[in-house]
């Protein structure tokens, strides 16, 4: 075991998988000699060579398109998109090709591409470095979508993603790369070394895709969330003094419906929180699923806390970000409902 932040855990996952499987290669902007703008691939080119950790031209569509071809030829590519906000030039390749290849070829062709992309706000990144576009990818049929909330989960889930023969979009909430963030930007940053999920095995382990985690248990309320918001929700619950199940979805597709509904059937109250804007956000799907599965157990309307329906603003970052205050307001509203 070692103390790792999420960057080190991701680096360790890549290292462990590359060591174990010589077909795994990395492709992306600045990932090679430099080791990535967030340092996630630091040292890997020196260790595995230029043929396995490849610096790419600034062309996300080309990175994803060529990764698909590389995967078809028996290698296992991990493509890094430097910011999730830059993934859009590659959307056609993801939607029309990567997600559909197995299906359209009657199961004869597939390409096991993993696409890593740092996402989310809270870093003063404005609208081009703060987005949470995960909902787009959950609508595709054919790609899995993952977002971890800790170093331990990041490593275990990334290893599973790379080993999966299905394509996986792996979002990394960059605000919590260096430490858990409770939503208060005025407090000093907390490092992962103070958090139990910052203890990460050095070697190989994996966390299956498709399993949510109950990170806190309580019987008054269920909070369903993922990414950075897991930590914001934990802080809000502490301040609210309610006993809540906090469920980290972890894998958005395929969704672990069972864990979610078991909790809501127990508590009868459900709050859904994510950074991405609310309308047609992933929370809408969660809310609909809970309503369909748990309607007769609900004691209050399902509450959603999410980003406003504006582009991510630079100056108003902390008004946009669904911080503790908004979660607390949501909790009050849901607990007061009769």
């Amino acid at each position, binding site marked *: 075991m070692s103390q790792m932040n999420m960057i080190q855990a991701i680096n360790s996952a890549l290292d462990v998988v590359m060591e174990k499987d010589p077909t795994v*290669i990395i492709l992306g902007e600045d990932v090679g000699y430099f080791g990535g703008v967030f340092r996630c691939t630091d040292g890997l080119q020196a260790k595995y060579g230029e*043929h*396995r950790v*490849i610096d*790419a*031209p600034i*062309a996300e*569509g*080309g990175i994803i*398109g*060529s*990764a*698909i*071809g*590389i*995967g*078809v*030829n*028996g*290698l296992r*590519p991990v493509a890094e998109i430097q910011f999730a906000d830059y993934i859009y*030039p590659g959307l*056609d*390749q993801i939607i*029309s*090709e990567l997600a559909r*290849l*197995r*299906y*359209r*070829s*009657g*199961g*004869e*062709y*597939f390409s096991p591409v993993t696409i890593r992309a740092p996402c989310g706000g809270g870093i003063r990144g404005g609208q081009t470095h703060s987005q949470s576009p995960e909902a787009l990818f959950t609508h595709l*049929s*054919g790609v*899995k979508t993952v977002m971890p909330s800790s170093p331990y989960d990041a490593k275990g889930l990334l290893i599973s993603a790379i080993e*999966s*023969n*299905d394509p996986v979009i792996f979002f990394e909430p960059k605000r919590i790369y260096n430490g858990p963030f409770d939503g208060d930007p005025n407090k000093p940053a907390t490092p992962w070394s103070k958090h139990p999920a910052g203890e990460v095995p050095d070697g190989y382990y994996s966390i299956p895709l*498709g399993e949510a985690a109950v990170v806190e248990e309580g019987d008054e309320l269920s909070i369903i969330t993922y990414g950075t918001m897991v930590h914001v929700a934990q802080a809000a619950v502490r301040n609210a003094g309610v006993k809540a199940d906090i469920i980290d979805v972890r894998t958005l597709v*395929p*969704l672990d*419906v069972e864990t979610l509904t078991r909790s809501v059937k127990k508590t009868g109250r459900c709050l859904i929180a994510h950074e991405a804007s609310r309308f047609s956000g992933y929370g809408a799907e969660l809310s609909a699923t809970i309503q369909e599965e748990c309607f007769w157990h609900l004691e209050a309307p399902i509450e959603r806390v999410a980003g406003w329906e504006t582009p991510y603003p630079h100056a108003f970052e902390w008004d946009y970000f669904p911080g503790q205050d908004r979660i607390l307001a949501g909790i009050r509203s849901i607990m007061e409902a009769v």
Partner: protein
Amino acid sequence: MTSKSRLHIPRPSARPGEAPDFSYLSLSEAGAVSRPATSATASEAEYLAQNLVRVMDDDGIAQGDWIPDLSPEQKVEALRLMLLTREYDNRLQRAQRQGKISFYMQSLGEEAVSIGQGMALEAGDMLFPAYRNQGLFILRNTSLVDLMCQCLSNTRDMCKGRQMPVMYHNRKGNLFSVSGNLATQYPHAVGWAMASAIKGEDHIAASWVGDGSTAEADFHYALTFAAVYQAPVILNVVNNQWAISTFQGFAGGERRPFAARGQGLGIPGIRVDGNDLLAVYAVTQWAAKRAREGGGPTLIEHVTYRGGAHSTSDDPTRYRPKDEWQAFPLGDPVERLKKHLVNEGHWSDEQHEALKEQLKETVMAAWKEAISYGTMTEGPMLDVSIMFDDVYEEVPQQLKDQCEELIALKGTLS
């Protein structure tokens, strides 16, 4: 005098009712363009993009230093494969008109591209076809019955009823799955070729787009990646003059040949007479050898003409002269190879007609077998549960539930 900015709207040389005019096509004499060494630099090979590599002259006589080393038997086989492709197209075009299939796309007039190139490549080379490359599937021994069953979406459909007609694949034959989206396969070919080089293998990749699709971002991504990594890949532009109703000027073909698109990246480009099977074969062999020697990618523009409609949903008489193909200066690839073989004494009109008859029977027999596995309207029908397979490697619970829901619903209706 004051100058004004100007918006240029490209216009084709002739519209319906006007006389076809191909004066815009720059042509070279057969044999006039020399063949550089495969080790030539992109600059040394630059003239290949500006001229037109041709082997067969108007009398069908092979000329110059691009004459490929093909035996008479191989050339007769090439002719047979082009005729088979054309006959296959005929049958399926008619099947669409009879309502047996939903849609079809012929490769009429462009057969030499797929057949000439397919013959010049090795079985281990991976091909990423576009939708008008049925010749590649036929050449690589995909059974006609299998191809037809795909178009029929029937119980033997390789795509399990999931794709429109002509979106074939052939895993054993190293033919990738055809996409209905344009140019998306181009970066796949480059990635595949990169992986081949990473693995230290000498298999190369090849892919095809039309003149129109060169405007897509994927075309440019592919060229950039191919150039950066010197990927062993042959990127082909089949310039058949028309992208549905827009002529090649709308893809930027008015001032520079498509073959020259690689020049800025240092990718050699070859502009070849796409209706001259011998020339197509020869330039492909050159590019393949270069790629296998570590010389990297080549861009080949095949100058040809789309003899038929874009698809069965299209009516070209609304936007181009009816007799434009007849006026196309590079003729018909089948007639040209036939003339060459007859001139060389290896073929005759009688043999040609007999072969056509025989291929017609072959195709008809395949069709009869194919429809025995079902058509769009007549059984046997595909089991609907396979709709839920292959979205992922394993069927997730949500899809299992949806499948059960559908089957239960159908049960209550029947």
